[in-house]
């Protein structure tokens, strides 16, 4: 009934990675999609490092290599998250160093600990446009101990932080006793990496969505990097498979292997070899500086990164289309 060939006045959202990242100001609150070592928007993270964005406020829940690498590069002021780590791929050395041996005092890095559930619910509340949401978690833990609240001095002053970490409340409705209210997360930017986006922004993700849908809604702007841009008409044929509508995507960037070295289900597996070398480099500040120089700063852009990676490596990571990962990959070095 509505004519297919609209005389659209819409501006294209398609940008280069440099353009998309350059709009992010220092101090921005950023939620990275994906989950620890899966489908993280690594090309975008590397471009953030290249552009040297400062004083970033990370709210990924959980964080993975993107958080550890940004902390190690000295670009993070605050992180509100339930986890920063590489799962079985090693220790998040940069994050560890930031805490240990007077690290916090030296760097001024502020960390706020949460849990997977409460981190997810805080993003959900952001997506819902409500300032808080109740949870039955956290009771009896030290996560809510005000003595450990590194953000205490900023609360009530910074508009980017909730006035309190949590609030206790008695259930007025069903006699369920005491529970906690936790504040919404309100990111300036959400950055996600996905297998497929329509030219207007409809997102299709295979398998786990993780927090990407909620993050895209919670954020003021959402930048999506994608393996490929496809036609909206193709995606419309199976709307039940689409994950985020175009209206909540601000910028579209095509970056093949933009999740490397993390895994993108159905596209390519985790690059265990590369990942291990990357994590190894973070063991010490100077080796990490070298790694950053070699793999990020000396390269002008993601294309150059891929060229350096090489065709053989890229093809070796390809996922089995039936399984979504690469069953022939050697996982243990």
């Amino acid at each position, binding site marked *: 009934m509505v004519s297919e060939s609209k005389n659209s006045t819409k501006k294209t959202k398609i940008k280069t990675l440099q353009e998309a990242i350059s709009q992010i100001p220092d101090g921005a609150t950023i939620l990275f999609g994906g989950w620890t070592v899966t489908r993280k928007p690594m090309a975008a993270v590397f471009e953030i490092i290249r552009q040297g964005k400062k004083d970033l406020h990370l709210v990924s829940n959980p964080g993975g290599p993107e958080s550890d690498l940004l902390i190690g590069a000295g670009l993070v002021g605050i992180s509100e998250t339930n986890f920063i780590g590489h799962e079985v791929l090693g220790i998040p050395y940069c994050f560890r160093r930031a805490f240990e041996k007077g690290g916090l005092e030296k760097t001024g890095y502020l960390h706020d600990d949460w849990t997977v559930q409460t981190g997810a619910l805080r993003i959900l509340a952001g997506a819902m446009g409500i300032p808080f949401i109740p949870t039955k978690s956290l009771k009896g833990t030290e996560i809510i101990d005000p003595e450990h609240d590194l953000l205490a001095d900023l609360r009530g002053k910074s508009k980017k932080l909730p006035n309190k970490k949590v609030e206790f409340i008695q259930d007025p409705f069903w006699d369920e006793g005491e529970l906690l209210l936790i504040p919404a997360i309100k990111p300036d930017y959400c950055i996600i990496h996905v297998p497929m986006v329509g030219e207007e922004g409809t997102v299709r993700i295979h398998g786990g969505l993780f927090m990407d849908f909620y993050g895209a809604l919670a954020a003021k702007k959402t930048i999506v990097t994608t393996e490929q841009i496809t036609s909206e008409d193709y995606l419309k044929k199976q709307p039940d498979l689409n994950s985020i509508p175009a209206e909540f995507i601000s910028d579209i960037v095509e970056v093949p292997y933009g999740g490397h070295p993390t895994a993108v289900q159905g596209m390519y597996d985790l690059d265990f070899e590369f990942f291990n070398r990357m994590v190894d480099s973070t063991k010490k500040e100077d080796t990490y500086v070298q790694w950053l120089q070699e793999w990020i700063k000396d390269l002008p852009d993601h294309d150059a990164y891929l060229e350096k990676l090489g065709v053989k490596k890229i093809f070796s990571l390809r996922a089995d289309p039936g399984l979504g990962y690469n069953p022939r990959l050697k996982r*243990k070095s």
Partner: protein
Amino acid sequence: MSKYTLREAMAIHASRQIRNEDKVIVGTGMPLVAAIIAKNCHAKDAVMLMEAGPFDSNPLALPSCVADPRGFVGAPWVADPVQMMGMILQQGRIDLGFLGGAQVDKYGNLNSTCLGTYKNANVRLPGSGGASDIGAMAKRNLIIIAHEARRLVEKVDYLTTPGWMLHPYENGKRVKDRLVHRKELGLWGGPEAVVTTMGIMKFEEETKVMYVSEYYADLGVTLEMIKENTGFAIDTSKADQVIPPTEDELYILRNVADPENIFI
């Protein structure tokens, strides 16, 4: 009988805590290995869940983590973390949680945040992840941890995940001189067992203090060794020898659950 290691014994004894038809939520590492053993041995109907999304996972290869595409294979449905942790777990619909950590104390409280003081840690760890939520809201919990005196401690350096006895909060402050049963805080469930590299610990019905329930006599573990490697005075008076791993279990562990030796 084949030889096997303490770590292999830990994986197999942990797997035995899973009942058929349990909905069990597992994390990266040993929990995944144990769940896969259980599903291939005595608990074929167990439903394996992961916090990042896989629901009723039936993987063909051991997932590297809870978001690994390997974990989505054979799953009839995929949750998002709000659904898994904010709905299914919080509603009390998950039967068994599998937890690890850097420290566990005599009440089953877990630490996966930091060793030393929070603000100036000796070792900063990745953080709770889903552990704290699972410890609070699964119907039963199972803890897997290497049996060392620095890990089984009188009191955890930081309480990430609630066990049995907890300091309550009053007027927003943690009351450090009072310990209450988790039920008083409105928490259900609680840790059922701690499976270590030396045996299986349980908790006294009344005091909720950890004791030795079974130990790996088959591997030469003695009650003295357990006492020496436990950071608090542990009751060993009720300890039985475990039923050793079967050939089947060992076969499954080595050839099906973790043939790449990723966690074992």
